[in-house]
């Protein structure tokens, strides 16, 4: 069944790292949620002089992160970030995971509790091929990484860029940057982004925080 279905491509990891790193100031303090083996954090530490902390649920990944010298807390994002104090970080990163947690809205709020800014990458299920597929075949979309079906995909929530913007507005969150990603390339200010982008990167901060000039470093 799956082969005949269009799958939203997952970003290639090196590209993803570059994209995220471009939005993080040098010398800042960064929390990576679902840090995996700590790859991104290693690069941030070694190339950006960033003070790092990871959170990861999967034990083998935690061991990998420890083996890279990455400080990592084993925790489930669905169970909160109780170990992390308010505004303990400058940035919190959540890459292609928001659609997989039970309560994305709660998690976004907690992210902006623990950090000044959040960098979030989400898949855009508003992509035209997803829409077309649903229209023509009547089948639910999935992302690329594994041959998932609707009943076993880790993606619990399907969202489009428009949906995500609605949520951010609802949360009274200030959007510092919105970067549509089209076939592996970041295209700032893309026309018809919600139709063309397969993923999108957002840099957000709490609207209650004092406004800082929105310059990407």
């Amino acid at each position, binding site marked *: 069944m799956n082969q005949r279905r269009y799958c939203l491509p997952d970003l290639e990891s090196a590209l993803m790292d570059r994209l995220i790193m471009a939005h993080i100031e040098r010398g800042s303090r960064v929390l990576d949620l679902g840090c995996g083996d700590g790859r991104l954090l290693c690069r941030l530490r070694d190339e950006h002089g960033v003070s790092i*902390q990871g959170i990861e649920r999967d034990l083998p990944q935690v061991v990998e992160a*420890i083996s890279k*010298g990455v400080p990592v807390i*084993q*925790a489930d994002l669905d169970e909160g970030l109780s*170990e*992390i104090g308010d505004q303990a970080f400058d940035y919190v990163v959540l890459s292609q995971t928001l659609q997989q947690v039970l309560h994305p809205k709660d998690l976004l709020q907690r992210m902006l509790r623990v950090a000044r800014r959040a960098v979030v990458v989400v898949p855009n299920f508003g992509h035209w091929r997803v829409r077309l597929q649903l229209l023509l075949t009547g089948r639910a979309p999935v992302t690329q990484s594994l041959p998932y079906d609707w009943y076993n995909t880790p993606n619990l929530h399907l969202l489009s860029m428009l949906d995500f913007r609605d949520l951010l507005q609802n949360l009274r969150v200030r959007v510092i940057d919105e970067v549509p990603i089209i076939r592996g390339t970041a295209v700032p200010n893309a026309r018809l982004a919600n139709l063309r982008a397969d993923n999108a990167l957002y840099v957000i901060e709490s609207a209650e925080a004092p406004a800082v000039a929105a310059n990407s470093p």
Partner: protein
Amino acid sequence: MASEIAEPVVADDRSVGIVQTQYAELFQPPAPLVLESGERLGPIRVAYETYGELSPRADNAIFVCHALTGDAHVAGRHSPDSRKSGWWDSLVGPGRTLDTDRYFVICANVLGGCQGTTGPSSIDPATDKPFGLRFPFLTVGDIVEVHQALVKSLGIETLLAVIGGSLGGMQVLEWVARHPKAVRSAICLASASRLSAQGIAFNAVGRRAIYADPNFQNGDYYMAERGPDGSRRFGEDGPRFGLALARMLAHITYLSELSIEHKFGRRLQHSDQLAYQLQRETEFQIESYLHYQGQRFVERFDANSYLYLTRAMDYFDLATKYGSLENALGRTQARFFVASYHSDWLFPMSQSREIVHALVSARRHATYLELESVFGHDSFLIEVEQLEKLLVPFLDQTYQHG
């Protein structure tokens, strides 16, 4: 704390083999140790053991802090025919987690203990009698101060790691707060930055059991006969019923409901039928086990030491002492490894999370795991393979990159 429920591990080629306890005389006159209470104590004898070789740069030393009733004998055997190996033998040895082919491992008995280091059963040089309750009040800080002096006397300025569980974990935290530059990594297992009210309550009942024993004699129960290390013998004439009772109670707190259920259930000790005898003390297997633990404990532990050390635990409160936990732990550049166990109800996970919370706020290098185990508080002594997987890369990274 910790009850060493683990079965003795059979010696294999990864054991450190035959080892000997060594002794250091520190804080000799005219430079006694000034205790946190303000009292002075010296000279202080410290029993310790070492395994492996200290590197020429003295940068590979790991100090192991023992729990409430532990001793300096953490690994190996004292003689070829001794039945029991060190209390954390499965962690320490060539190729083991604390790899003695690579690291120099040190373990020492605590101040106030009764297994070679100066404590209430030692002879007070002023009176030529055992200190008993005239031994000065001591704290976890005092314990660490003595161990730091020992480490220094061995020619080590900076430790690669300090590791311990339970009261040992408290010592680890005190080490980094007190000597922030002397530690490159801190490994704190099943522990807390302060004992919970529940923990104090259990300690209080244990101490009351000792005080209430008619043989307690206000702490002056030592026999004239001296032990091999010069201290007076304790046991037969001491408050052994009270001490055994304290141990039985404490032992329950080290286990989990599930581990007791698995190991003993409601099984009977002597037959498969109830005896209908009120005062039969060992009707159920769990009763027999606790009595055995209590009796065995009396043979090796001094009731006065138990009083002093549980009190030191009660008093331990890093946040109050240093203003906040963040202040206490933020002074060091050490990497931290913190682990707690789901089934540990004496040092619950929430207490480890407090430590991690402070470390993250202080922007320290913090690794934290909540480990699955059925063994309750004792898990850190038993689930050694789980620790190995995590600590080997952690120590390796610290050793390579500091």
